């Protein structure tokens, strides 16, 4: 069943007017209630997509970013013939094949949903990564938010004491976009170190006196300089004071996991990041991004798949099994994304960038188990059926997380924006 975009459904002026009237209670792009209240930031109208299958099953999202361009042929979309490459195809009990480079993932393939028909136009790392992270193309003068910031806008905070938006193994890169700084993902650059420096210097009395003096001495500058970045730092200071008072900071400490669990995920940063993501999700953090690097396999692809690929394999399978055993998989959507695929022609020991066809994976959060959506052609060059864009991928994740699609918000500079950039969700992936 093909879906029109929600923009299609709002094509006539009457539709749009009616819709905007309904959405008029939403403070366009601004927080209505203070972000710390924990409530949704506005009286959100009922989501237009609420009736579609799969809506709102995911309370949490773990977004795995494989940076560099994961070769689809050497992972989730193996081919025969000239495109084959160094890996072999392995049949899984789910009925589809994946690469021999990912044996642990093969074992849990009956839980995952592979999208083999992702397609994009750009084979340049920075802009393609931006597109997959935000669902929008990079433009000169606007910064789009990450998924977690959108979710915080529509649904409010997910925890009274912890942030709703975290990114691991990567800096924030203004992940809040045009939303206030309180929506920015909290960056954890090294999962083993977690969130250090949460205890103040000196005793409580000294800390209190300093905080009082700080608020007094800060008054002049904050008032005299009406600068948005200064205000953002005011927000960060406020968030920090609040976080220091949280009793859930243990969530950031993976050292308290049993050694066996840490070993099962793996010792590398991506693995520990996945483990951290699981802990955070358990403690109520809604959205966690985890970055994995090293996927730009122009050369030495076989070596790299046995290295970076194996680390991913162990960590991803461990994460899925862990979530399942804790009863969290049905309410946690794990998304594996990458900025583009790699060329079918294997040369020089590797493959070049290839955005026209690539693969992503969705697991949990109401997604079908053991399912393949879409297909690439026999070579792995073009999409053969059911193309999925980055915007649609985002719309699908948004739909699973219970976010309203087709709802326009206005940025502070007056631009209308919709999550997923007006694309429709791929409801075929939902059970």
């Amino acid at each position, binding site marked *: 069943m093909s879906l029109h975009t929600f923009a299609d459904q709002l094509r006539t002026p009457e539709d749009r007017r009616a819709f905007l009237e309904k959405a008029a209670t939403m403070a366009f792009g601004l927080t209505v209630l203070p972000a710390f209240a924990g409530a949704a930031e506005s009286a959100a109208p009922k989501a237009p997509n609420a009736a579609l299958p799969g809506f709102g099953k995911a309370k949490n999202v773990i977004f795995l970013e494989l940076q560099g361009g994961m070769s689809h042929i050497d992972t989730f979309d193996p081919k025969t013939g000239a495109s084959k490459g160094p890996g072999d195809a392995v049949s899984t009990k789910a009925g589809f094949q994946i690469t021999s480079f990912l044996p642990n993932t093969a074992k849990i393939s009956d839980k995952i949903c592979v999208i083999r028909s992702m397609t994009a136009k750009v084979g340049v790392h920075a*802009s393609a990564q931006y597109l997959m992270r935000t669902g929008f193309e990079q433009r000169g003068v606007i910064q789009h938010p990450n998924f977690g910031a959108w979710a915080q806008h529509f649904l409010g905070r997910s925890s009274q004491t912890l942030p709703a938006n975290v990114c691991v193994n990567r800096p924030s890169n203004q992940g809040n976009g045009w939303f206030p700084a309180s929506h920015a993902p909290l960056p954890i650059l090294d999962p083993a170190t977690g969130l250090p*420096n*949460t205890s103040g210097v000196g005793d409580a009395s000294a800390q209190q006196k300093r905080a009082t003096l700080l608020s007094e001495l800060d008054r002049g500058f904050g008032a005299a300089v009406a600068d948005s970045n200064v205000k953002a730092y005011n927000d960060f200071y406020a968030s920090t004071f609040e976080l220091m008072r949280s009793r859930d900071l243990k969530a950031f400490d993976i050292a308290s996991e049993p050694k066996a669990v840490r070993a099962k995920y793996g010792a590398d940063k991506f693995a520990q990041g996945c483990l951290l993501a699981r802990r955070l999700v358990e403690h109520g953090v809604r959205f966690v991004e985890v970055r994995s690097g090293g996927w730009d396999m122009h050369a030495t692809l076989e070596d790299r798949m046995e290295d970076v690929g194996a680390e991913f394999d162990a960590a991803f399978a461990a994460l899925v099994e862990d979530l399942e055993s804790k009863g969290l998989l049905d309410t946690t959507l794990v998304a594996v994304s990458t900025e583009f695929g790699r060329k079918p022609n294997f040369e020089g020991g590797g493959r070049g960038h290839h955005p026209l066809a690539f693969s992503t994976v969705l697991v949990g959060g109401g997604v079908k188990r053991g399912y393949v959506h879409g297909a690439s052609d026999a070579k792995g060059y073009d999409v053969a059926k059911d193309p999925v864009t980055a915007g649609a991928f985002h719309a699908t994740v948004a739909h699973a997380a219970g976010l309203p699609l087709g709802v326009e918000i206005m940025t502070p500079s007056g631009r209308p924006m919709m999550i997923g950039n007006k694309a429709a969700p791929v409801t075929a992936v939902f059970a």
Partner: protein
Amino acid sequence: MTPRASHLGIFTLALAAACLAAAPKKKAAKAPAKAPAAVSVPAVATAPVRAVEDRPQIWHLWTDVEGRKVEAMFCGLSGDIVSLQTKDGRNYRFNTSILSPEDREFAKACAGKQIGGFSRSVVAAAAADIDRLVEARLNAAGQKLNAPATDEEFLRRIYVDAVGRTPTAEEAAAFLGDAAADRRERLIDRLLQSPGYSLQMYNWMADLLRAKDIIGKRIPAFTFEDWLKARITANATWDVMVREMISADGRILDNGAAGFLLFDADMPLDGVSNLITTFLGSNMSCAQCHDHPLADWSQRQFFEMAAFLGAADMKNESMLAEVKKLSRADSGLNRNFVRLIGEINALRIADSGQNKLTFPKDYKYDDAKPGDPVKPALIEWDAGDAKRSAYSVSTKSPVQLRDEFARWLTSPENPRFASNIANRVWRKTFGIAVKEPVDDIDDLSAASSPQLLAHLTQVMRAARFDLREFQRVIFNSRTYQSAASPAPDLSKGPYLFNGPIVRRLTAEQVWDSLVVAAVGPSADNILLRRGEDLKPLALPEGKITVALVKDAATKMQGMRSTKKSSKTAAGTDAGLANGYEGEKPQSRNGLLLARASELPQPAPETHFLRVFGQGDRLLSNSSTVDGSVPQVLQLMNGPVARLLTDPKSHAVQTAAKEKTSAKQVRSLYLAFLSRNPTAAEAASAQKALEGGLGLTDVAWTLANTREFLFIR
């Protein structure tokens, strides 16, 4: 919100529009750029800028108090520290007290002479023209220049922009107490000649050029960093530096300049795309894969440019093969170490007699066949560019192609080389470029003020690419010395430079300011140079024996074991200590107290510098000034916070010397915010001191104000 402009550093390959899927037919002549909505700006006549003289190099046979002699070039004198450069390019800094009395006087005399550069009147005239152009553009939009910056605002800003840190209390008091009419001009000149200038220029260039300790998977690139530092300290001009990088020959072990191209040894086409963006401000990244109907460049043009590096071989494969064989032959050697030594030695640039670049297998256009050899050809931006003198290059000899390309690239007559660096340096000082984004200046007419950009280009050419002199002109302008504007929303229109913009200090500027607050301005003399550490690993050319490899492997192992701790506590590194020349940095609270340019490049991931946005040096301009909760945790509670609350810190000790608590508070205000406190602020601080807080607490508080983190 932060203007999009300031985040373009992260997204160096930002696109103005989506790339469309490659069309099989060859596209027609390049699409003409859309002219922006006409703004009527009256033409402003500007005076031609008289070019600087060829800089005299002052070579001298220096004698120390013990009678030892060395031939070296005078590079600068700052206070008592003289900077010399020997013929091999190595830079030395030491106190003049070790020189003979005659040479001490000689050094002073050298400093007194203007070492090249513009005369004061030329600086004033060029700066005045900047002001007239900016004002004309502002007036055309119904706007005005901001009021002049106060002395306090100017003081903090010029220190940050010229020497990369805020002034100490003593430095601030000295300037604020100076009543002379030309105090600002003199301060600018003094700061530009001081050691801090080189340290902050390094940070800026390191981010732009991707200075990184380890390139590829595990190859140390310290020689590139040392080369960069030596050239900056000698104030080598930008065109010379770029030419050295692009035409560098030999191993990275021997020739640090080769490190720039060798960064992309595994992906030479990406390297070409990167250098075109970095040195010409031209975004060809899309053109690597297909024509871009909305931008000006075709895939063919990209490959024709890349062909100038088509004969450059970046890996010595035969060396790699031999070392691999040897490592298997002798069981006593650790294979991994041996392969690493092979990789380090094999990373070199050599031009062969054959241009190997061919059109890619999936080349879709009908003007060439996949696999055809690519003939090198230079891009042009406007009809008539080919007539410029820069374009007389010869493509006959493959071995010379890279040198010819470097000549065209760095020529003052290159259509974009001068504007690109002028635009980028303007952005460094104002926070926004004249043409945003800096990675796409193909269409100069789309700049916020094309006339201003043309004038800046002319100044850059007249300065012969001396970036110090160029900045000297900017710093002396009324535009630069205006009050700052809040960060604008560029989606609403271009920023026309009512003044510099309010912006957060860069990670390096924050760190450096706090380091100097902790240990004092002598931090400027702590210098890290590690290129020499790699020399024992250089295998003689053409001579690879088991014994030599064994020898090198042993030396390498020795070096590595002292660096074992480098991954643990952020900033501490016992092994690093060997790399410091002159003064050694203190280690406090697990932090090595050296300025950012003299720490690992980049700093470890959890270090204060990275948390505050220092880039990973994988992409050009990847640093950011975004905020985050972990930053605030660091500044409030982390090891740096403990530095601030240390009574032995330089800032607190300086303040403690004052006789009254009011003067002590004033000293701390000068140290952290470069100004006197208001009456209300002084009263609040006074009350806090009486209420049980100490000077260290006031220091902590001031460093945690928004005002500390921002420059206006």
